[in-house]
């Protein structure tokens, strides 16, 4: 690989960060601020294109894709150096390209969406900060650099979710997101420390010495910790905690739906396309660690945990999404569910399938969120789908684009990327040797996905308008960015069909030939038929339940038929309540304890401060107050009068000074005598 490519990779996160800093410090007006943010993002996009091209040209070798590395020393202490670095490889390059491209479109959309916001410039500052940090996460070749950027991403997410902090719900959601993800990050940090202790390096790849390379992996997999667990498994599970928090996996998913309190472009960028995918990316990046010590079937304890978590999350998210009425919350739970799909693929060993679904999902989910933003904007900031309807006529552009996104998500056959990516995941899950249950869970989740998306389409776009004010189509600046996203949602699928699994080849560094025959093998046909059946079942069910009943009734048809189940599902299967009853109660008990401890400590420190610094009759207090300050006014008066000040000093002050230095000397000499004895 050319040497300039890793250099360029290191530079890619900088333009958005620079834009954020410039907006923060220069306080530009609205237009220049947006221009700065867009310029930064566009520069990064150009850089990402070049890096992607470089990775494409570099191809691969026997041992995998070619990696361009750039390592620099952060600081040295004694003989220990702490290097940081970036890596340019197909995985990172494709993520960089996706983040910059989708990010740029969302930036453009935000210009329209945030038009009336008084803190418009600040919004773009936060967006740029987020973008730069996220690019840092995917460019990093060091677990430490990744962690630093990861936390910056968390900070940016906190700022953006709580952007409308005057709304108490938004402030609470921001806090919830920040704290929940911190739980996972603690695990990630512990894993990082543990790895560093064991291997002495935090670089992923380092010419044979990195922690994802053979020697380190063998040693990690060879040692066991408590319970006979391999060290690599223990560390992997700790790292996975971070991924669970960030990627909204069950049971730490609770923050993601609440995060929809943020502006809709934020939901599209952070809580659909990029940040929540960071957890999936992390697992994909350190996949060799998760897979270390696996036998011929590629199964390890760590990967089994990942697969089960993914499968449960996929079904859980899909079930809860069925009974939501807020257009963004449906999409949020859908995101939770789709992230579960990705984790399932990774756990089953299909890195290419998982990452491909990540990329495809980024496109169509960003499309859906921006479409939802357009709908919300057009309906006068109404988010309840029961109060919408008939938007097909009033918002035709949004309708078509949203429809494309919906079909991609539901997995409509052949033409849409979601079809191919989901099929690949089903293939991986089916081939998983441990258990078939995750496969069945994923199948059920896929049916439900088609079902809830059909429900949403019917509620929002079909029927008649049920709201108050007439809806209107959104301005160009908001709808145009959706077009490339829609194109991506369609075209991306052709990069990972069974006939031409180009993407998998690209990630592995192998050239892949176009072989239409592979499409018509028995296995491939069977899975395509299964996928079609899944999508068709979901859509048909949705149509049957919702299209026939008049949408104007307040009651959901499912609610009338299965009241108990619906209530449970619409209350998100009571996970939040569960936390409220357990964690929060524990916490409030802890809080009381802490408050009491705090009181005691404060009394102690206050007491110590008072006793030691003022009282104690002694050193600090005596010197500062009685010796220096009590004579203060007197001396000042003498000085002001300008008479006899010298004698006054001779009379008292100088002696005190001398006395004190003398006391110090005596103390030191007594100390010496004590040492000698």
């Amino acid at each position, binding site marked *: 690989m050319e040497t300039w490519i890793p250099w360029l990779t290191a530079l890619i996160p900088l333009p958005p960060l620079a834009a954020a800093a410039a907006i923060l410090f220069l306080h530009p007006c609205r237009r220049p601020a947006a221009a700065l943010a867009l310029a930064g993002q566009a520069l990064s996009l150009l850089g990402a294109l070049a890096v992607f091209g470089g990775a494409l040209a570099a191809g691969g070798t026997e041992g995998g894709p070619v990696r361009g590395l750039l390592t620099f020393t952060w*600081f040295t202490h004694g003989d220990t150096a702490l290097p940081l670095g970036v890596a340019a490889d197909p995985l990172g390059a494709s993520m960089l390209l996706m983040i910059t491209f989708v990010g740029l479109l969302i930036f453009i959309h935000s210009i329209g969406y945030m038009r009336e916001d008084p803190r418009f410039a600040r919004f773009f500052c936060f967006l740029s900060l987020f973008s730069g940090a996220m690019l840092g996460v995917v460019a990093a070749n060091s677990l430490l650099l990744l962690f630093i950027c990861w936390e910056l991403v968390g900070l940016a997410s906190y700022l953006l979710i709580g952007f409308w902090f005057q709304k108490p719900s938004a402030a609470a959601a921001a806090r919830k997101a920040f704290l929940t993800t911190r739980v996972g990050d603690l695990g990630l940090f512990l894993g990082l420390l543990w790895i560093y202790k064991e291997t002495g390096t935090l670089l992923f790849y380092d010419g044979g010495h990195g922690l994802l390379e053979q020697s380190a992996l063998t040693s990690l997999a060879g040692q066991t910790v408590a319970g006979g667990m391999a060290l690599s498994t223990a560390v992997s599970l700790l790292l996975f905690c971070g991924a669970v928090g960030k990627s909204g996996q069950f049971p730490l998913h609770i923050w993601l739906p609440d995060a929809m309190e943020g502006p809709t472009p934020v939901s599209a960028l952070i809580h659909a396309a990029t940040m929540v995918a960071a957890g999936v990316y992390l697992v994909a990046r350190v996949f060799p660690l998760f897979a270390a010590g696996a036998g011929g079937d590629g199964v390890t304890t760590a990967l089994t945990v990942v697969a089960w978590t993914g499968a449960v999350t996929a079904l859980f998210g899909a079930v809860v999404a069925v009974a939501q009425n807020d257009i963004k919350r449906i999409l949020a739970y859908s995101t939770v569910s789709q992230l579960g799909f990705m984790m399932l693929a990774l756990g089953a060993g299909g890195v290419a399938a998982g990452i491909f679904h990540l990329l495809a999902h980024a496109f169509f989910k960003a499309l859906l969120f921006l479409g939802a933003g357009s709908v919300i904007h057009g309906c006068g900031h109404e988010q309840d789908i029961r109060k919408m309807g008939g938007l097909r006529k009033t918002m035709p552009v949004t309708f078509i684009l949203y429809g494309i996104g919906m079909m991609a998500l539901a997995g409509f056959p052949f033409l849409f990327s979601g079809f191919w990516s989901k099929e690949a995941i089903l293939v991986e899950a089916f081939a998983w040797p441990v258990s078939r249950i995750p496969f069945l869970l994923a199948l059920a989740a896929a049916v439900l996905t088609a079902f809830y998306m059909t429900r949403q389409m019917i509620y929002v776009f079909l029927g008649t308008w049920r709201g108050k004010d007439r809806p209107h189509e959104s301005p160009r600046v908001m709808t145009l960015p959706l077009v490339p996203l829609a194109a991506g949602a369609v075209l991306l699928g052709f990069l990972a069909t069974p006939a031409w699994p180009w993407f998998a080849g690209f990630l592995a560094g192998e050239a892949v030939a176009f072989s239409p025959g592979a499409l018509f093998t028995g296995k491939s046909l069977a899975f395509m038929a299964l996928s079609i059946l899944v999508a068709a079942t979901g859509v048909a069910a949705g149509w049957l339940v919702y299209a026939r009943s008049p949408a104007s009734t307040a009651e959901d048809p499912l609610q009338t038929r299965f009241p108990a189940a619906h209530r449970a599902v619409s209350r998100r299967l009571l996970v939040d309540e569960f936390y409220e009853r357990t964690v929060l109660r524990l916490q409030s008990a802890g809080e009381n304890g802490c408050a009491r401890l705090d009181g005691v400590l404060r009394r102690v420190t206050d007491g*110590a401060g008072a006793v030691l610094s003022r009282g104690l009759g002694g050193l600090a207090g005596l010197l500062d107050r009685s010796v220096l300050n009590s004579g203060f006014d007197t001396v*000042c008066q003498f000085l002001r009068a300008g008479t006899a000040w010298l004698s006054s000093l001779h009379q008292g002050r100088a002696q005190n000074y001398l006395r004190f230095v003398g006391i110090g000397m005596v103390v030191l000499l007594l100390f010496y005598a004590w040492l000698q004895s």
Partner: protein
Amino acid sequence: MNYLEFLILVLPEAVLTMTALIVIGLGAKSGRGGANPFSSGFLTAIGAAGIVAAGLVLALLPAEASLGGMLVLDPLTRLFKWVILAMSLLTLALVPGWAPPAHRGEYLGLILFATVGLSLVISSEDLLMIFLALELASLSLYILAGYNCDDSYSAEAAMKYFLFGSISAAFLLFGMSLVYGYTGSTHLAEIGAALADLPTEPIFALGVVMMLAGLGFKVVAVPFHLWAPDAYQGAPAPSAALIASGSKVAGFFILAKILLLSFADWDGSADWGGFATGWVPFLALLAALSMVFGNLSALAQTSVRRLLAYSAVAHGGYILLGLLSGGTVGIAAVLFYITLYGMTAIGAFGVVALVEQRRGGDSVAHFAGLAKEAPFTAGCFLVFLISLAGIPPLAGFFGKFFLFTSALGGSAAGDPSGLVWLVSLGLGMNVLSLYYYLRVLKQVFARPPAESTGHATGTPPLLGCMLATTAGAIIFLGCFPNLLLKPIEAALRVVG
């Protein structure tokens, strides 16, 4: 000795002295109507140009030279002469706005003379020369502290500083003469060599303790710190900034040099339960006292200047920790920390000066709502105080990290974990210190301004440049500590 060599070696100091004379001359000139025709900005610019020129001249001097140990030039002294010059340059940024209005030329001249003294302290390896250079710097600083004749606080500050300084100088000189009498040399390396063959006797120990007391005054270590709160409080802002930065840098530099070059064989041990005679236990005692009394006294302060003084005492304690380990790593940590501490102190005094000018006082309450009126200044103040509190990713964090980890390695002669007690004490006190820094920041950011008196808002441009430089350097060194630490370590390795 060749006078041409001598002239070449002191060329930077010569440039500074010439500049000082020029500035004093220009400042004394009376124009029409008796008023001085030169603005203080112009005079300051000349002074700054002189400092920059001295720095450039320093770069042109031979890499290594020595004049019989009286004056030494090697990579380390060169680096720290640059640091001293940089401190003076940053201090000059405060002169046009905040120096006493009368006799600006002389004021600038004194700053330059002090710089000459500090610069000579750095480059000397002979007790006599060290003493002379310290006195040159100190005498200039005494006058600078008391320059504001109309202000009784300033006069009081100078008086206390002077009295304390002269007593300390007496101790230093007495200690030096004892050491000379015992070892027969004033040259640092020769003292070290002579000690290798001599048994240590109480009279020698007395000499070392007296020297420690004298230098303890320079580095503001408890119990020789009493002058600092009053001097910091009463001195004009630029003087206080120079006392807190350049003077402290030179003090620590020369303390480290003397201890390591001369008394390396008489280091002893400060391991818990295993104290052994030498300078290490004395230093450990001073460090412990400084950390405890500095931080506890700072808790009780309402004047921000006094708070900064006690915080300087506490930081002196942390820095002494690094000296205890004695190795290259520890010394590099000390030099790294003292450099960035100096910058932080100048920046903080700049902010205090601005607040005093606008709001008429330096108590914590005067800082209320600063973020609303001068957001840039407030932001820089945040950087300074948070760096002093040692929070990543600012340079103060790495400085403390290096100091504490080097001390965790133990002293050269002692048990590898012998200093854990001192490090734990330092860490505990550091946590405590967060309280008083945040108390000030809370006023700055969370409180509304007391009353709107219609005074100016925003940050003056020259001060803004200085604050941007220092705050930028602190953030930058926090992200890339290697950029300063590497040169220091390399220079230390050359020196040996």
